[in-house]
């Protein structure tokens, strides 16, 4: 399954399928990007980050892709599991700036 845009879309994905969550960031001066996962009743939890000198970074079952030309960030989750159901946020940050700007979030629901 795949989501598009900065609005709060929902993404429904079959268990075992791959998920792609997209994010368009706003500031061309941003050089650090993070994906967070927020489960119900919890705070945002760090998943993976990427710096602007990279275009791809892999973690455990997750991959982040960065396209600076079109200011686009995506999070790919392999073999989506029920525990992946949550709201996913992208966030951007500029060098020497403590302020993290968050996107609106994507709600991912995994169907059994």
């Amino acid at each position: 399954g795949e989501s598009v845009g900065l609005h709060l879309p929902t993404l429904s994905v079959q268990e075992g399928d791959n998920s792609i969550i997209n994010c368009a960031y706003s500031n061309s001066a941003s050089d650090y990007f993070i994906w967070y996962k927020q489960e119900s009743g919890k705070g945002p939890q760090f998943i993976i980050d990427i710096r602007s000198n990279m275009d791809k970074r892999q973690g455990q079952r997750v991959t982040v892709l960065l396209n600076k030309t079109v200011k686009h960030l995506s999070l790919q989750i392999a073999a989506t599991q029920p525990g992946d159901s949550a709201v996913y946020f992208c966030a951007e940050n500029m060098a020497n700036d403590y302020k993290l700007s968050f996107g609106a979030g994507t709600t991912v629901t995994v169907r059994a």
Partner: protein
Amino acid sequence: DTAVSQTPKYLVTQMGNDKSIKCEQNLGHDTMYWYKQDSKKFLKIMFSYNNKELIINETVPNRFSPKSPDKAHLNLHINSLELGDSAVYFCASSNGHDSNQPQHFGDGTRLSIL
């Protein structure tokens, strides 16, 4: 062994009251933050302190006053609570020496104004 802990988890109070939320981190970080998350899940930075010094103040009404007694604590006091203050407030911390470090969040304080 909670990394960023906030108290209380839930806060229900009347309009016009004054209340405080406390945050503590045991990660050894030197920068702490307060965020507000509205009913649409939008997260917005309110304040940030680095080594007890205020470095971000995002046009928050002056009814909100953060206080950092030391690097491991950042409290938020709110005067004259209004209905629009109902939200979830998150504390976070990071290693501020390098701003390109992930922020670690607490589990939030759910504030409801009656």
